[in-house]
């Protein structure tokens, strides 16, 4: 009865095009039957795969899902980005008939980092993938240390056959994995030539998660992820279960290399053959806004969702490589402060926007907090930088038009939006809503 009520709500919403269809049915079902999530999860044939982490959930999920689908598996997936409990229920209901039978071989559930401890006991997943843990939306959640402590407590309670796949380059997650009674597999990079020149300022945990002593790094790949050890207590990076040099990556940016490795390691565990995995990587199409490429009015556009300091730093790194190759000169930054973006925009001061400004070109700025972003860029201008043209446009449509005008035919316009801004940008570029 809960299932049919919720499904009725889903169809009603679709019919009326209200737009909250990705969470409301879940809310209705959960009211009627509080055990809904666990009842649904139990019906997934081969088990549930949880994808958690601050950045990269969507791309990793889509990649793993595509690998599984090419292997003829039927997948339930909360691919709308609704990653709180009611969003998970809605996604599972989508694959359920009116009699309440769920028809899926696997469910891939992207789960918000703060909700994870609450839903894990109900889900009893077969696989858990944790990609990273960065400072994101602290205004909602408090602090990184607190989150990892909660994760550890709850994962340890799961059955011993649960496979936990973690980023071994992330000290917090490496430590978490070393504490768990379950089978733990680590992915990470083994490519010292990719080391950053210095540890970025936006870094959270360079202190030993075990004893609190500063960690020593042989090198850093991204934020606080790298090759590290603690000179005091001997804590060290976990041994990796995959050789990063053996695998190509999807999309651009080193962060997508991590996402690729996480999906590959999970697919290998599930038993997908190497050929299917490689083929999926080669033919991968980006999820919306995640290094997604579009053609607009004869111009090439790439949308690079950036929702926190680490994400934006890595975006700037990828954009700068393209700028240095002479294939881009214009960037559009769109900063919003709506609930999905986080209402606190102070994080832009932890981003090394100086690196974006240093290479010159045209910077167009827009979004709800257009002047905050403009102010950040004004304060990023250093002596000796190449000339930068800063254009401020409150109206997003005008901003996009201006940015396109400044983009030459053989160049790519890079759009760097926060989450809600990405949805607005996409709607304007493609003429339709996606959620």
């Amino acid at each position: 009865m809960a299932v049919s009520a919720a499904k009725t709500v889903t169809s009603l919403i679709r019919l009326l095009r209200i737009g909250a269809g990705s969470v409301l049915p879940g809310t209705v079902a959960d009211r009627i039957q509080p055990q809904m999530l666990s009842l649904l999860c139990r019906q997934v044939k081969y088990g549930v795969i949880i994808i958690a982490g601050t950045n990269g959930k969507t791309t990793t999920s889509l990649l793993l899902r595509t690998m599984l689908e090419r292997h003829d598996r039927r997948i339930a997936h909360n691919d709308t980005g609704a990653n709180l409990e009611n969003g998970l229920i809605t996604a599972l209901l989508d694959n359920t008939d009116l009699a309440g039978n769920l028809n899926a071989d696997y469910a891939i559930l992207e789960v918000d980092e703060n909700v994870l401890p609450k839903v894990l006991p109900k889900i009893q997943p077969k696989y858990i993938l944790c990609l990273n843990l960065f400072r994101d939306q602290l205004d909602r959640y408090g602090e990184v240390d607190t989150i990892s402590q909660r994760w550890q407590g709850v994962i340890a309670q799961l059955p011993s056959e649960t496979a936990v796949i973690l980023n071994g380059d992330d000290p917090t997650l490496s430590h978490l994995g070393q504490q768990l009674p379950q089978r733990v597999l680590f992915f990470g990079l083994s490519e010292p030539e990719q080391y950053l020149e210095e540890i970025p300022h936006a870094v959270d945990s360079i202190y030993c998660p075990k004893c609190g002593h500063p960690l020593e790094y042989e090198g850093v790949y991204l934020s606080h992820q790298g090759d590290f050890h603690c000179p005091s207590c001997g804590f060290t990076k976990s041994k990796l279960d995959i050789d990063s040099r053996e695998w190509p990556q999807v999309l651009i940016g080193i962060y997508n290399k991590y996402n690729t490795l996480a999906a590959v390691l999970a697919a290998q565990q599930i038993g997908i053959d190497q050929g299917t995995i490689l083929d999926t990587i080669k033919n991968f199409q980006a999820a919306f806004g995640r290094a997604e490429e579009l053609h607009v009015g004869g111009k090439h556009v790439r949308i690079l969702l950036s929702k926190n300091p680490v994400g934006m730093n890595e975006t700037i790194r990828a954009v700068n490589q393209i700028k240095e190759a002479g294939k881009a000169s214009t960037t559009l930054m769109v900063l919003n402060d709506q609930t999905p973006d986080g209402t606190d925009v102070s994080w832009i001061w932890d981003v090394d926007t100086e690196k974006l400004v240093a290479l010159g070109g045209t910077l167009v700025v827009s979004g709800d907090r257009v002047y905050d972003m403009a102010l950040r860029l004004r304060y990023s201008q250093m002596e000796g930088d190449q000339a930068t043209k800063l254009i401020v446009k409150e109206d997003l449509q005008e901003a996009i038009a201006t940015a396109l005008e400044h983009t030459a035919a053989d160049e790519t316009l890079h759009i760097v939006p926060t989450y809600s801004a990405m949805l607005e940008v996409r709607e304007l570029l493609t003429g339709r809503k996606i959620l």
Partner: protein
Amino acid sequence: MTNHQLTIGWLYPNLMSTYGDRGNVICLRQRAQWRGYEVQVMPLDQQASVADIHKVDVLVGGGAQDRQQEIVMRDLRGAKAEALREKIEAGMPGVFTCGSPQLLGHYYEPALGQRIEGLGLLDMVSKHPGFDARRCIGNVVFEVSASRLAGDLEKMLNSPPVVIGFENHGGRTYLGNVEPLGRVLKGYGNNGEDGTEGAFYRNAIATYSHGPLLPKNPFLADWLIQTALTEKYKMPISLKPLDDALATQAREAMFKRLNVSFPVAAQR
């Protein structure tokens, strides 16, 4: 005047910079450099010496997570604590956000674990009411009420100094015998109860308001630079005005959204 030099001391850049607090350092550095002053930014981390602390003209401290705050307090003892105390007592200006004021007070009681003793420079205490208590989160607006500072700023602005920022703190601060920095117009302030925000002692500004604080309230940045140079060179310094149109527009946009009708200018 161009041979004037300013040393910005930055307390524990890797431990105490939770919410874009680096923006305060960037703002001071750029505004001094744009006026032709020579600027040095000196990180005051675990490796810093007492002599380093004595070289500082203006001090910036940011917010920390509870564990980082403990590491800081373990390091900031003995001669280093004494040097900091001397400098602040002698009138070195500084801006201390979120965790830093807690460090300047008597103590901070975190949600988990033991009370962290502070320097006891400012007569105030901070307590975290527990994980279940609401964090104080949101845009915050306050009018500077600390009398000497308010007077200086009014002279600069020709209007009452209204500060805008963003607060996000679990801890609540209660003032004893120390002047509040301001009177809350929107938001929580020190504890959400008594309408006070921050504290002002000698030339030290303590506040829960990040955002970061200085880029959108450039008159505070200029007051800090001017006070630091005046103290250092023992002569009156007046700063060249800068173009703060973007800061004014950022303030106007937020005041409008918050339905606040005050003088919004970021500059004269």
